[in-house]
């Protein structure tokens, strides 16, 4: 294969597209600089009477659903509340076990039966489990994580969070597995499922909190249902993919062995794809933890509530400690589930049964738990971690922030003001000056170039949804914030990724850092940013960059690293300098992968942007957040769907571009 060959068509194509790009940029600049009044008002903002009041219809429909819809003898609301009541059972059980202890009777007449499982017993159990799944090092890490929770006084909040995670995850996993299996078996069901998953994964969570609030009430159960809905889609996708990836021969073997359809599924396909499915389980756990803070807005309590409350009080120290507690819990659960996923791979016949036998572990843990519950009433130090031994770093953090703000206020402020005036505001003005018919036409033209008529129509459809529902201006603010954040993330991430692709040592270090960054719940990013830059677009943008930079680094590094070595060798032998090697061989070939990374970054940026509504942006995220506080179902959903529309426009266009490029480079699979 000729290494220079791929680069040539790329260049040719860009040149052929040059008039198109020049015209696009020229016209956009013209609109930006055109004197006020030249562009008719209707083109900047659709007149009210032309808007489709979808949000109002949705609210009315929801109202009807909640107040009047009925199935036979039961109203719809009774059905959903009944469901919530059912879901409450396992959750209450877990909470009694881990947090409150069992009681007899209700309300003020309640008489305590037992203490909760002691913190010491929980730590011991987690340590044993870790030892069994991953050996001594993992045990040390997990014990350390749980000890942090006790030591820093986060124990009971953490156990509230843990108990809802412990219940939500199985529901999410089983539900995702079953839906995935349904899609695997029936192509028609899959065609129905995929667009729903697309929407579910791009609509910001806030948007469906309101309907959930209406249907299931305020409280831990509603929060748990929201968590399950949020965490399930990746499991569905992973299941579909994992079942498809089972080698055809294995499925054929199953049929030749005389399996019935059910046996084929449960005895052959599902177990054979177990390692891949465990990746999905890990995703469900991580997403559930990511939901912890958002879920606390509709009554989840626990660590999420602590973070939210201190964020609202601008109490940085407390918020940081609770945020770190969530992170610590996330790290422990992430490593545990990853160990469980790879254990099967590592297990050899002669390793025996691991360090701790499963049966003995479970009975031992059960006895220990019971014992600690019984003794807990006599020895309070066992039931609850004694306050005297708690430590808190909150005052130091507060002091640090104060110190920074006292000593560096001017510098930080100057930096912020400079960027706001010279970057943020001009970009915002530029985008807001673009008339929507022009932007829609530009998107359609892009769609046509990259993927044909179908793509053009899809993209136009999504864009017109935003225009017609009346969220155009807010959407442009979202595009401005998201776009800037993505550009900055790419400027940081692509060079870093390339460097990582070339140096194994750097990559190992950076990988460790971004793995940890990605286990942090999105809210946690807000804390340091607010500490330094207070509220506003700038703080939001910084938080978005921090949250979204990981994928572009990861994909770029992967793209550079996975170039077939013989191509690099071919480049070297034809006398490329290392600079030429990078720009003429490595980068052109890694470009599709880099684009995928940018796509992921855009998706993460959009999801983070909604959360930054808390620090005072004025975009679609803010609309969704306001809808949540007003309990306005329609506004929340439509604004959320508009975010999803932006996400899907970006996704489809970049996806088409990547496919196109991969085909040309002969990398398509």
């Amino acid at each position: 294969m000729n290494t220079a060959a791929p680069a040539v068509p790329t260049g040719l194509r860009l040149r052929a597209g040059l008039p198109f790009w020049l015209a696009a940029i020229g016209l956009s600049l013209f609109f930006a600089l055109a004197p006020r009044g030249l562009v008719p008002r209707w083109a900047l903002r659709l007149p009210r009477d032309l808007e489709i009041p979808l949000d109002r219809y949705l609210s009315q429909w929801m109202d009807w659903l909640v107040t009047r819809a009925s199935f036979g003898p039961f109203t719809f609301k009774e059905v959903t509340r009944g469901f919530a009541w059912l879901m409450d059972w396992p959750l209450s059980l877990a909470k009694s076990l881990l947090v409150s202890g069992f009681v007899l009777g209700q309300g003020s007449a309640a008489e305590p039966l037992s203490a909760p499982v002691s913190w010491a017993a929980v730590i011991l159990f987690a340590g044993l489990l870790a030892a069994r799944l991953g050996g001594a090092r993992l045990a040390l890490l997990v014990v350390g994580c749980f000890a942090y929770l006790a030591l820093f006084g986060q124990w009971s909040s953490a156990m509230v969070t843990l108990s809802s995670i412990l219940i939500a995850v199985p529901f999410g996993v089983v539900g995702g597995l079953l839906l995935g299996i349904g899609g695997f078996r029936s192509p028609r069901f899959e065609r129905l499922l995929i667009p729903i998953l697309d929407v579910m994964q791009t609509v910001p969570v806030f948007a469906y909190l309101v309907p959930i609030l209406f249907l299931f009430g305020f409280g831990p159960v509603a929060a748990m249902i929201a968590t399950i809905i949020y965490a399930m889609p990746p499991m569905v996708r992973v299941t579909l993919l994992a079942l498809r990836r089972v080698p055809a021969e294995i499925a054929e073997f199953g049929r030749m062995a005389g399996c019935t359809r059910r046996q084929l599924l449960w005895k052959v396909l599902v177990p054979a794809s177990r390692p891949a499915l465990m990746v999905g389980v890990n995703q469900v756990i991580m997403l559930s933890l990511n939901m912890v803070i958002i879920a606390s807005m509709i009554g989840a309590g626990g660590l999420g509530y602590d973070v939210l409350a201190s964020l609202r009080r601008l109490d940085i120290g407390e918020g940081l400690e609770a945020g770190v507690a969530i992170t610590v819990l996330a790290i422990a659960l992430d490593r545990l589930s990853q160990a469980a996923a790879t254990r099967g791979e590592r297990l050899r016949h002669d390793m025996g049964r691991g360090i701790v036998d499963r049966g003995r572990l479970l009975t031992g843990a059960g006895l220990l738990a019971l014992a600690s519950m019984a003794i807990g009433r006599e020895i309070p130090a066992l039931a609850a971690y004694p306050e005297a031994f708690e430590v808190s770093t909150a005052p130091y953090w507060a002091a640090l922030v104060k110190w920074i703000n006292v000593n560096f206020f001017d510098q930080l402020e100057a930096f912020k003001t400079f960027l706001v005036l010279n970057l943020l505001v001009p970009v915002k003005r530029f985008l807001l000056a673009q008339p929507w018919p022009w932007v829609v036409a530009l998107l359609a033209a892009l769609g046509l170039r990259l993927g044909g008529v179908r793509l053009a129509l899809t993209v136009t459809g999504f864009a017109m949804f935003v225009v017609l529902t009346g969220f155009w201006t807010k959407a442009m603010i979202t595009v401005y914030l998201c776009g800037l954040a993505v550009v900055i993330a790419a400027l940081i991430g692509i060079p870093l990724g390339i460097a990582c692709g070339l140096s194994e040592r750097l990559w190992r270090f950076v990988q460790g850092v971004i793995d940890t960054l990605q286990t942090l719940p999105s809210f946690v990013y807000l804390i340091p940013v607010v500490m330094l830059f207070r509220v506003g677009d700038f703080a939001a943008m910084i938080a978005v960059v921090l949250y979204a930079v990981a994928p572009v680094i990861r994909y770029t590094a992967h793209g550079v690293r996975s170039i077939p070595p013989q191509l690099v060798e071919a480049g070297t032998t034809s006398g490329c300098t290392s600079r030429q090697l990078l720009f003429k061989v490595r980068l052109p070939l890694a470009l599709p992968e880099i684009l995928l990374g940018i796509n992921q970054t855009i998706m993460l940026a959009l999801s983070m942007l909604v959360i930054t509504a808390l620090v005072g942006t004025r975009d679609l995220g803010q609309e969704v957040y306001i809808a949540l506080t007003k309990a306005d179902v329609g506004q929340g959903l439509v604004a959320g769907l508009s975010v999803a529309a932006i996400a899907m426009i970006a996704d489809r266009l970049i996806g088409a571009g990547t496919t196109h490029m991969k085909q040309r480079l002969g990398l398509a699979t």
Partner: protein
Amino acid sequence: MDRPVSPSPTEAKPAGEIKLACRHVWKLFGPRAERFLRENPRPSAEELRAAGLIPAVVDADLEVRTGEIFIIMGLSGSGKSTLVRCLSRLIEPTAGQIFFEGRDLLRMREREMIEIRRHKMGMVFQHFALLPHLTVLGNVAFPLEVQGVDRATRERRAMEMIELVGLQGRENYFPRELSGGQQQRVGIARSLAVGPELWFLDEPFSALDPLIRREMQNEFLRLQGMLEKTIVFITHDFDEAVRLADRIAIMQDGRIVQIGTPEELILAPATPYVAEFTADAPRVKILTARAIMIPADGIGEFAGEVLPQARIAEIAPAVLADARPFAVVEGDRLLGAVDREAVLRVLVGGRRQ
């Protein structure tokens, strides 16, 4: 030298009854293939292309006799894998009939098909298709497990099979801990666990390196010597086919172009394609005395006698050592003679006798 009688493994067997037969089996990939074939029962390649259909199996007819090793041979893309999957009904043929013990498989219900697969068929796969989550023992016992055989019985039976293929001591290993050859031994043991009468092997040794392949072929012949299954064996390797086959079907572009014993294929290739395949075959190991003998009239003195089915490789040392020809004798009848010149012609590798 008297009668060098060594019955070769592929000595003509008494023609058994027909175990598996297929009649006019077609497999076309593409939209509305079935209707197209009903309307055009014998489409040409051009008609198929015009209809947007890809022919994988074209009008296949074959018969496999009880106890026979029947090899389907062809290059990749010739449709041999599709054909064997039609025979086992892993793929639904577009048209045709497939008779197993006289019953049309294609008319059977799902349930009946499951019963036949559970008790009468076994299959070995190119890439082994072992279940990664089960040990060797679990894999071999799996076909019995899905039938609902209790644990003790199926594990006893599985252990017998594991011993049969020489893997005792490895029964608690996971597949990924075994070498390729060992994995395929597990595949073989597993396919034999239910005691099938019809044994499909889909390129079972193609993924193994040459030395192991040879060892596994010997192992296969050893097992077949004990078990006497009816075998449908797929391969793309003519040497392998010649080594193992009773009869070979050669496929090209979905069509069976010739069916015959290895010797028949060499002596009378039906098409240039078959001739091309057989050109480099080890003729001395395939051709028999009968194939190269000359008329015995007028020969006064014979050096000895050979059987008509004796391979050239077996008689060559004796024939070459003697200036006089050998008589080819079946029972009491003198069929012809084999002399130095005839044997040399084969050894030197003249293309046509």
